């Protein structure tokens, strides 16, 4: 592990962003970065609890989960996956821009990232509305009409067990969407701060660390898409 030596760099002392308890900007940056990675680990474990529930129920109630999965619109799921991937690209392009000191370009990429985030949430709200209309939202109003195989024959599946799929679906995508909303808030704030000249070639650590958060939210969706939408599409 790299020991940061407490050598004071002359230029750093004048850097207004240097906090008093750090010896130099490099130590401060390394600390901030490590802190963000540790926070991301907590997010992995946070979602991990739901992945554990998913794994348990997929193993014990495969048919019910597959039946539920087949009612999801795969097109929206795939589009959303693409949207998030493109938004991760715009995030890294924003960081690339600020590394070259191009503040306006950075703002542009951050704004595009935010817009893509809204597109994602918009699609999710379309999907949730569809689920509501089909009475697939868990609770007293839940009603599942069953799925059919290629020959048009109805596949028997316990209605109450299928509700388990939708509970997992709403819990996992709902929590993910909440994290997207937070991410949009953070990226918007950073866009405004960049516009006001707060970041430069010499200091852009918050954008980097926010980018790490955004990428993790993308990675979680990368797993949610196949696990929720693609359980058993070949039947």
């Amino acid at each position: 592990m790299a020991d940061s030596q407490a050598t004071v760099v002359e230029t750093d002392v004048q850097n207004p962003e240097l906090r008093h308890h750090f010896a130099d900007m490099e130590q401060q940056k390394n600390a901030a970065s490590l802190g963000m990675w540790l926070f991301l680990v907590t997010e992995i474990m946070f979602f991990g609890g739901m992945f554990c529930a998913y794994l348990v129920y997929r193993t014990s109630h495969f048919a019910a989960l597959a039946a539920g999965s087949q009612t999801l619109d795969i097109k929206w799921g795939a589009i959303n996956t693409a949207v998030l991937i493109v938004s991760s690209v715009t995030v890294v392009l924003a960081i690339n821009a600020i590394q070259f000191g191009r503040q306006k370009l950075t703002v542009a990429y951050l704004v595009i990232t935010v817009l893509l985030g809204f597109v994602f949430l918009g699609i999710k709200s379309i999907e949730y509305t569809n689920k509501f209309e089909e009475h697939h939202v868990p609770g007293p109003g839940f009603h599942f009409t069953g799925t059919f195989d290629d020959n048009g024959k109805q596949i028997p599946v316990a209605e109450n067990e299928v509700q388990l799929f939708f509970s997992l679906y709403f819990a996992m995508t709902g929590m993910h969407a909440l994290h997207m909303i937070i991410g949009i808030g953070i990226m918007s704030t950073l866009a405004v701060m960049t516009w006001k000249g707060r970041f430069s070639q010499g200091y852009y650590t918050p954008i980097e660390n926010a980018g790490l958060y955004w990428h993790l939210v993308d990675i979680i969706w990368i797993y949610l898409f196949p696990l929720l939408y693609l359980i058993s599409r070949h039947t």
Partner: protein
Amino acid sequence: MASAAIPANSIPVAKTNYLTNGFSLKSWLLTTDHKRIAVLYLISVTLFFFLGGFFAMLIRLELLTPQGDLMQADTYNKVFTMHGMIMVFFFLIPVVPATLGNFLVPLMIGAKDLAFPRINLLSWYLYVIAGGLFLHCMLVGGVDTGWTFYTPFSTAASNTHVIEAGLAVFIAGFSSIFTGLNFIVTVHRMRAPGLTWDRLPLFIWANYATSLIMILGTPVVAITIVLVAVERLFHLGIFDPRLGGDPLLFQHLFWFYSHPAVYIMILPSMGVISELITCFSRKRIFGYKFIALSSVAIAVLGFLVWAHHMFVAGISLYAAMIFSFLTFFIGVPSAIKVFNWTATLYRGAISYTTPMLYAFGFIGLFTIGGLTGLFLATLGIDVHVTDTYFVVAHFHYVMVGGVLMGFLGGMHFWWPKISGRLYPEGWARLSALLVFVGFNLTFFPQFILGYIGMPRRYWQYPGEFQVLNVLSTAGASVLAVGYLLPMIYFLWSLRYGPIASANPWNAAGLEWQTTSPPPTFNFDETPVVTWEAYNYEEIDAHPQEVPVGR
């Protein structure tokens, strides 16, 4: 030559220290000074301790008689739930890391503050908000699920304020996560020059290992509480058997955190003991590397054993055997610590100061608690004693006989550093004795009660259990006095105690190289460390002009 100690009377008395640097409420409530935040935590945590103790008193009063005559059964359920939730989430988990840890970690590594001082303050505010929410929950009727929130009672049947209590615990969990995050980054990135990992005080290793658990485990209980709340509110039934869900899944997710949580509680206290044993036997610790690595081993192994809380819940026998097997292993690093502390004492120059009395108490009581853990890990015994007072006695031995004794020992040891005053040694030794006697009188009878069959969480019991219950309640009264006395004399010492020098114990460690109390930024110059930890032979070879302790 590498002498750690600067003669105490050569350290200039600070014109301002962290306590006198601003007296306004704002300077305290908006502070980012880790020492002030530690004091804020100390006050909050103590308040919750006495509130949890109040509920303990209600339990012991009810159990004086076999009949349920003090309160109704439903009320009793709420009382033991409140006692458990307050003590676990609002006392035991934060007590050593957030008070002693926050105060000492930067000082011990020669840093000016923690890595993220504002997040440290946020951490305290989250604790206070969580605490406030929990108090409100209590005032509007409380919760009766037990501190363990088991489903399906908590999701489907309980008509008490489960969500509010769960939300309070959720927020307190994030307070814990931020503290752990801060400690890990601080220890990795902000050690003074020359302070390599193998020169760190063992208190730092202990808090580091604790922080690993906080980061990895707490989020899982957080999501579990969210799922319980969501099941109650929106009928998203994940643990609901009517939907094919498994109530045991809740228990798996809950205990995945809550077992490592007990290591969050004990590890920092063990770190304190290492500091006390070395100082009051004037010796290097025996087996430094083993104790340091055993802390990390406990942190890692602690994640592999959670289902030993579920042996009779309905898990498969084969899983039970796996978890039982793994649970035996975790006794090994704890035993290594106890052996090494004992070996450190051998041929040491022992002084029986209050901190040392608490350290001795810890070693004895933690050993008993730990050994009874082995009984519980054994499947054949566990089926008989699980959910009885045997378990209650076991965990109180390790939590109260362990964590709390370590905390009290540490509070006495570092009180001069924190407050700049000396506490009255006579009263302190008396309190330590009362705590030890009171504790054993309270909880040893409970081992017997559990063994002969008294279940836990019952508000009435058969008459043949009464004698032991009366002994237990009597012990609790003595214990209460033992806890109240330090409150009184610590507060007294703030005004009337003798002024402390920089290093009244002549102890090793960077925290003793600055004034008592320290200045706001800890050190005038960043120290450069060239010596091993606990170099008491060198310190004692250069005797101080200031008398050593008492």
